[in-house]
């Protein structure tokens, strides 16, 4: 292999970099704008649906939502505490997320049927 800037020019490295970074920034900037617009559009939609008679409470609700509840502050503190403890206690203190099953749609009723009949006293 020969090291040379000519390779970079031949491979159009600068063009790829400029194109690439432009597109990456455009993509994430669009997502950013989408995220900024989303609650406003939803808010506008729900106010439209509510007949425009309660805009003040909707806004009040929005501003209330800006401050975290006590519950969430507690949760955040608990998380931080947890992360700290993890360092000192090591592997055995890893969290365990319990598996929750949810039977939906097509199979839900079959599941119910089953639990019903198996709960019976026969056989």
């Amino acid at each position, binding site marked *: *292999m020969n090291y040379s*800037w000519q390779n970079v020019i031949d*491979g159009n490295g600068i063009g*790829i*970099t400029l194109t690439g*970074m432009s597109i990456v920034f455009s993509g994430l900037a669009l997502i*950013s704008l989408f995220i900024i617009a*989303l609650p406003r559009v939803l808010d506008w939609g729900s106010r439209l649906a509510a007949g425009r008679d309660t805009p003040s409470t909707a806004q009040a609700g929005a501003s209330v939502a800006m401050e975290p509840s006590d519950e969430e502050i507690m949760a955040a503190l608990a998380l931080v505490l947890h*992360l700290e403890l993890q360092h000192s206690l090591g592997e055995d203190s890893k969290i365990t997320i319990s598996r929750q099953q949810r039977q939906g749609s097509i199979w839900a009723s079959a599941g119910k049927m089953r639990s019903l009949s198996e709960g019976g006293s026969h056989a």
Partner: protein
Amino acid sequence: MGMLYDFLQNTGFAAMTWGNLMMIIIGIIFITLAITKDYEPLLLVPIGFGVVVGNIPPVAGMALSVYDDGSVLQYIYFGVSQGVFPPLIFLGIGAMTDFSTMLSNPKLVLLGAAAQVGIFLTLIGALFLGFTPAEAGAIGIIGGADGPTAIFLSSKLAPHLLGSIAIAAYSYMALVPVIQPPIMKLLTTKEERLIRMTTPRQVSRKEKIIFPIGAFLICGLIAPGSMVLIGMLFFGNLLKECLVTDRLANTARNAMIDIVTILLGFSVGASTAAKYFLTSQSLLIFGLGALSFCVATAGGILFAKFMNLFLKDKINPLVGAAGVSAVPDSARVVHTVGLQEDPTNFLLMHAMAPNVAGVIGSAIGAGILWTVLAL
């Protein structure tokens, strides 16, 4: 006894090379680091054991290694070599990721874009060193700090370098707590590291449900090459957030991702037979990989400082370092470095926003490189 002698000629002891021995030791080091230091154990243990298995010297004529047609390891490696496993892992990651930190911090999303400069500067470095454009693109993606993305793009652009690129990507991801802090301290002042950020707003269920669909459309339309990775990521996230498909989301983030992780890690490891892996190219790739992580970290931090020139609510520039992805380790590193300056300044939630944005950013980057370099 002639047969016994012949057989002994075919044992691994006889065919063992110094390269194999070295790789076996590397594999054992991976396993040891994963167990004793807790560095990415879910990936380094499978990869490490795969490295050990892949460096047992093969027997001529028997289909054993990932490179032998019809061998079991080749069938398992198929999911890697065809790029099928990475999107399935993204499906599971989507089903366990909460994007609400990002939804409540939209401006931090740009930090996840800035850190992708690591990808493209590494590409320039790889071109300089004489790699072909396709190879350089695959090597650059190490700077995305995202294992599945790196494997996916390598399988498309430079399958012969896949092993080295994957091992480099995962190694440096495991070493994020070692690589990032010095750079973070070098590029920030104490005052910057003490900046407290405002509490983000809360996000409604509706936003969480609409977000994956809208964000997918943006990414998919702007960079169709990222369609499969990003599509699976947001598909998994929709399964999680819409609440009516909980059982699918649970399976995607448990049984499914576990099975794929086991098979991917093990077979990537097994593809590192010394004969293919111990080359000067691999050495260069490891060097470029280290560079790419440093550049990406610096890119994120410096862009945060640049944004602060225009913002009233200043960003703590440490948070920029989380833009490299390496979810969630780089966000944890930000949190830890922040706590060293001020034990009451919790940056974790803020750092998660550029962290997950970085995943999207590097998947877009991979899509662009694939489109530009494969055509």
